[in-house]
């Protein structure tokens, strides 16, 4: 079925939501309250369109398409409607974009440039509300910047069902708030910052650190657990400092995480910034060690398939007994995204047939003279007396070692991982060159 939007034919199905049809076709449709995962609430009235045969403008987020629908978003009339609603939206806004973290990714700014551009008409006093309110879980609220779209409220009521946030007051006195004595406190709380279309909710972790237009983004996958939530890594390198990752943002994947992340995964970007310096050992010394008879390797279940494959071939070529063990934390998982298996690619380990029997590993470890650790967390701070230990690592190592090779982390070494549901996903390296070598390159050199 086809409908007409601004005189152009658009393909869709009877009963589709008009706003979804428009977004899918990359057509301009301003919206605050509608969000793909939260649905429509109909409160912001930003998505108004003109529909042929209807005397009043309609909201696209509550219009279902049917045969012969003719929609206009550009008639003078509808432009005026949008302009006037935007003017009302901004009426009591503090217009403090210069110090707002959302600047650059704020819908109000975008829409103002598209439909607003009027001179302020305000001759009456603005309504004053609260600023710098600490809601908990790293989330700060500025009630004056809020457009009351209720996305954050609906997130806590419909998605996490924790109900910490609500609207209090009536009319222009309406405000987002937490109940007295309570705080925003759930393992997914920081999603509200990303959901907020304006600068009303900001993350304490990111506030005031960077202007968003100075950031580069790379498509990646969270390595925090086996769910494999899709993310963007936002990072940059300035004249004065080395490359730094500033945040993870959710990247939509309707089969996995929709547009959400858990707070643990979201904040796990910090591990990528732990600068770890060690005097990197020489490959030839490793060759020397490989002459020993009893050799064992443990590979991290969060390594990519490419890395695992390289490790597997290396072990085969050099008669090293190879194991991998999953990172299990019985207290981490929940009914939604988080899984008890905190390894990013344990399904990859299984696919490549790498031994993950814990008991067999224990026995072999006792007998081994040389232990090669491929970035597995369990061995990084474990004393392995009377053994020669080699670490290939992306992070700080506590225990004594014979040799150490610092390798590029997942932000600098693209690859593929398989999530808990068997979905294969690629992630990519940021555009800056890593100071550390890629694991596969080092292993190549050993051949």
């Amino acid at each position, binding site marked *: 079925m086809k409908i007409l939007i601004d005189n152009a034919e658009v393909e869709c199905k009877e009963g589709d939501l008009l706003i979804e049809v428009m977004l899918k076709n990359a057509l301009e449709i301003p919206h605050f309250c509608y969000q793909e995962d939260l649905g429509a609430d109909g409160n912001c009235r930003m998505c108004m369109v003109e529909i042929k045969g209807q005397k009043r403008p309609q909201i696209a987020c509550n219009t279902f398409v049917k045969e012969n629908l003719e929609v206009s978003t550009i008639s003078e009339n509808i432009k005026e409607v949008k302009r*006037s609603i935007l003017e009302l939206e901004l009426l009591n806004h503090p217009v403090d974009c210069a110090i707002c973290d959302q600047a650059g990714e704020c819908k109000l700014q975008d829409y103002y440039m598209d439909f607003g551009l009027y001179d302020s008409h305000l001759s009456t006093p603005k309504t004053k509300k609260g600023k710098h309110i600490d809601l908990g879980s790293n989330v700060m609220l500025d009630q004056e910047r809020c457009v009351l779209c209720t996305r954050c409220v609906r997130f806590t009521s419909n998605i996490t069902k924790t109900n910490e946030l609500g609207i209090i007051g009536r*009319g222009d006195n*309406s405000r987002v708030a937490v109940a007295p004595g309570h705080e925003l406190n759930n393992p997914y709380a920081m999603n509200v910052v990303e959901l907020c279309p304006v600068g009303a909710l900001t993350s304490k972790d990111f506030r005031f650190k960077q202007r968003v237009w100075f950031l580069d983004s790379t498509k990646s996958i969270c390595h925090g657990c086996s769910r494999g939530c899709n993310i963007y890594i936002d990072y940059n390198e300035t004249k004065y400092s080395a490359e730094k990752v500033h945040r993870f943002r959710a990247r939509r994947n309707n089969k996995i995480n929709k547009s959400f992340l858990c707070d643990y995964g979201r904040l796990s970007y910090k591990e990528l910034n732990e600068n770890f310096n060690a005097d990197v050992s020489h490959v030839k010394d490793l060759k020397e060690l490989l002459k020993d008879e009893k050799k064992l390797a443990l590979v991290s279940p969060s390594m990519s398939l490419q890395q695992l494959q390289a490790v597997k071939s290396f072990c085969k070529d050099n008669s090293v007994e190879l194991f991998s063990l999953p990172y299990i934390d019985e207290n981490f998982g929940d009914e939604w995204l988080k899984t008890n298996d905190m390894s990013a690619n344990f399904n990859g380990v299984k696919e490549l047939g790498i031994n993950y029997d814990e008991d067999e590993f224990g026995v072999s470890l006792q007998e081994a003279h040389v232990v090669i650790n491929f970035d597995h967390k369990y061995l990084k701070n474990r004393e392995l007396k009377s053994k020669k230990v080699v670490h290939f690592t992306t992070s700080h190592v506590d225990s004594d070692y014979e040799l150490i090779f610092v390798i590029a982390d997942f932000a600098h070494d693209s690859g593929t991982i398989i999530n808990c549901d068997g979905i294969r996903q690629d992630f990519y390296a940021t555009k800056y060159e890593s100071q550390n070598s890629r694991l596969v390159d080092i292993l190549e050199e050993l051949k």
Partner: protein
Amino acid sequence: MITKIVSKNFEIPDSHLIDVALANGRYSSLKSVFEKEPQELIDIIKQSGLRGKGGGGAATGNKWQIVSDWDGVKYVVVNADESEPGTFKDRRILSLDPHLLIEGIIATCYAVSSNISYIYVRGEYEEFSDVLQGAIDEAYEKNFLGVGAKYRVDITIHRGAGAYICGEKSALLESLEGNRGHPRLKPHSPEPEFYFNEPTLVNNVETIASVPFIIENGADAYRAYGTEKSPGTLLFGISGNVNKPGVYEAEFGISMLEFIEKVGGGVKKGKKLKAVIPGGASTPILPYEMLKDARLDYENLSALGSALGTGGMIVLGEDASMVKALKNLLRFYHHESCGQCTPCREGTSWSDKILDRFVAKKATTEDLEILKSVSNSMNGKTICVFAPAASGVIDGFLKHFEAEFLECIV
């Protein structure tokens, strides 16, 4: 001019007590109710032409049919939130003849196959709510309600917390479910209201209180009053600059000026009539010049560019300041907007603040332009009709009394 159907027992002392009520005909319609099949009752209500008396005037029979046809556990919710300035009729029924309402609820529940009814009473109506609860308790004792009744109906009173918007039926149900009283998005095709996802009928107190007479006397007896399209009677309220403010029942279609003169006792101190807000605060004001042939029915007032609303007339005499009158109304809208829709939340507040500048006689021509444009932004672009009503109120004042506003411009 006065016709007593719903208000028949209002003047009988202690008519809220069940013995007095029974002695004066209350619950007598139940015999005819239970003799009939539910669908027959719905058909009688349809034939009577009964229209909702909460302001909208929707055909009651059709609403009942939709609920009756819908699958699920059915609820009957009585809207007693009455919070609109100028409207104070339902409280008369609650306090003077609560058994009439209970009788009506039993008939309605039977007609739409419901066993559970809630009465949502305006928060400030504590006193009336207590009288009503007393009557409900008596009705349980006499087995008109509860397990011992011929047809089981349970009634629970729910008192609101003082928000006008909770009178809007979907906001009322949100509130009844324990949520904030925010109106819901309107459906795309005819369907009942929903209480916890179950089909629900929401009717005004007076609508339900009109049911016993119709069932007992037949649709034609009701149609004997009023006009073809607005049959029956209404409890008209009259307030403002009149000598005898109050609630008086009359047929639809009578002359407004005659009603004001004869029933309301005319404008105070013999002053001239300047304007009338015909049906509660949310109906557009009409100047005296337009009222010569005005009749109190839905069709006539809508043809004049206003509405019958709840029939609560607010009368303004020649001394009334239209600027102050509008300020008074806009303060109400500012205070009562639920705040979810942008045009209403910001528009009601802005227009109220602009009116301050007119009242202070410090307005500018631009203020007047803004007032008009804000009003336009509120019309037809929101979830419920609260904002369009506010818009209509502003437009009405500016259309008929713009000169008074221009005088306040520096």
